[in-house]
């Protein structure tokens, strides 16, 4: 059996090999890859390059483009206070959104039991992630409504003064983030529930017999095994926080007076409402560079895993 001849390429039944047969393993990957690659290049890769280019221009979207070098960036960084607000708000989103892996883990630990109806409960806990951010935004606008919102009904029930979350310049972003945490926590929870399902049961039992406290077990045994879930939770949360747009557009439209804007929203506003394409593109480029740091981190880890 040692020297059995195995053809590395298929032998056609007809007996002679056509050009196609001889080269098919070289042709096939191109055929399979090209539709996706072409579409992706046209609609994703090329536009990125083009956005960088547009950001160096003064352009209203209709007339000719005027090259102004780094003018847009200079204006953004030195003269635009809304830009500063947007960056600060983005940082708030980024930092506070990191609560969702924590809440998600807590919820997953709470739900990881085997009692009657648990599957149903888990599904319903996951619910907020399935519905559109537009609906989440509407639901929370209604929830926060100062005149009739449930939040104020509850606060008054507790004997506290009512508040108007979405018209406070200082706190509005926090209230929107709270709404955003709702679906994001659900997502992280499902990642952790799957992770917990696959935790090595023997190790857990051994530690339990050794009398390890729950806290020690979580810290020393469970969390290390949950690392893939944590990694994924962090990645999706970072991306989600920097992409925050829908909730802001629905709940406040960036207001009051631009106080809840973020880079993603500011870009949209500058380009489509102020007709400043070049300026908007510059905001997008900055957001892109900001995000690239995380993408690079994620990719290097992923490629290392492949090796």
């Amino acid at each position, binding site marked *: 059996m040692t020297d059995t001849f195995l*053809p590395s390429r298929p032998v056609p039944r007809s007996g002679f090999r056509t050009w196609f047969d001889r080269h098919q393993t070289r042709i096939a990957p191109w055929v399979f890859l090209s539709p*996706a690659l072409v579409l992706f290049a046209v*609609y994703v890769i090329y536009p990125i390059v083009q956005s960088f280019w547009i950001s160096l221009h003064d352009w209203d979207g209709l007339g000719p483009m005027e090259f102004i070098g780094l003018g847009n960036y200079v204006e953004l960084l030195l003269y635009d206070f809304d830009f500063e607000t947007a960056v600060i708000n983005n940082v708030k989103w980024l930092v506070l959104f990191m609560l969702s892996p924590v809440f998600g883990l807590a919820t997953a630990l*709470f739900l990881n*039991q085997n009692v009657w109806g648990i599957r149903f409960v888990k599904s319903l806990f996951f619910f907020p992630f399935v519905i559109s951010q537009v609906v989440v935004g509407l639901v929370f606008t209604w929830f926060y409504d100062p005149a009739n919102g449930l939040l104020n009904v509850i606060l008054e029930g507790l004997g506290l003064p009512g508040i108007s979350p979405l018209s406070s310049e200082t706190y509005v972003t926090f209230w929107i983030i709270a709404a955003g945490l709702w679906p994001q926590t659900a997502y992280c929870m499902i990642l952790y529930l799957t992770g917990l399902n696959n935790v090595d049961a023997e190790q857990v039992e051994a530690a339990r017999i050794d009398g390890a406290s729950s806290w020690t077990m979580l810290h020393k045994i469970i969390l290390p095994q949950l690392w893939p879930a944590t990694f994924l939770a962090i990645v999706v949360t970072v991306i989600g926080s920097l992409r925050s*747009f829908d909730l802001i557009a629905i709940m406040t439209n960036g207001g009051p007076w631009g106080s809840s804007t973020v880079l993603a929203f500011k870009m949209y506003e500058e380009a489509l409402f102020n007709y400043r394409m070049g300026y908007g593109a510059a905001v*997008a480029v900055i957001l892109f560079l900001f*995000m690239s740091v995380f993408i690079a981190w994620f990719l290097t880890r992923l490629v290392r895993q492949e090796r």
Partner: protein
Amino acid sequence: MFPTPIHKRGTAANITYRVALWVSLVVWLLPLIAVALTSVRTLEDITRGNYWGWPTEILWYQNYVEAFTRTPLARYMLNSVLITVPTVIGSVALAAMAGFALAQYRISPVVLTLTVGVVIAVFMVTNIGVSATLLLGFVAAVVASAWLLRRSRWPGELLLFAMFIAGNFIPFQILMIPVRELTRSLGMYDSIEGLVVFHIAFQTGFCVLFMRNFIKALPYEVIEAARIEGANEFQLFWYVILPLVRPALAALSVLIFTFIWNDYFWALVLVQSDSAQPITAGIQALRGQWVASWQLISAGSIIAALPPVIMFFAMQRHFIAGLTLGAVK
């Protein structure tokens, strides 16, 4: 199992846990329950400020009927379907092929070099209007580097894969202006096709990530056996790979369905009229019209949320398998 199974604890702990479970569920879903309750209230209740007490009269369906008959809600729903279904089919099909290519073949870095080269060359011609000499020089440089790389040991398939993944994570805003211009110049602005083509292109990134990993994990013996049997690469894909990846196709389909159904940003950027707007943008437009008619807004929201919810419950296993891909080693 961690934490300690509750039935190994005392009766008191068990009862507390079970009660806490359902109470926390209600608290967790409170905002949604509020909306559901509002959607069955009468206008009188709303104007009188009876938002949170028991409705004086429950309108099981009237608000929903009104939302459908007095507004283009049905049209928006139809648009959402017409946008979502072709996108799911298109992106999953493209990604199955591309994922297969990236998982099963070694692709020399030449492909990537040429792709990037072409993109930059097109950019130079259309935007900067470079001189012919410069362009020729650039093309020559690209071809030369491709030639030099032809025997390189760099894993080209991995680089391409990384490109697809990276594309999947970029902020939408960096694509917004060029994609809008491109869609306009193709005559597809404010049309369902325009949205579909873009969605297919963008979702391909995520789908390729998914399909490539799934196909990579298939037992290699099966593929090799098919080749020895004399199947060509296309038969191999069609008769061997596709049947094996059916679970992945299902998982991807439900995920993409949900993503696209819930898309709001691109609906704002690429369409504007009622004839092409999906439900997410439509509901926001209706909000201006309905002002304080919260019972209608609530009914509309619930209708908009329903399809992905049904999809989720019908295909729960696939949905979660797709979403948690990579959450376990």
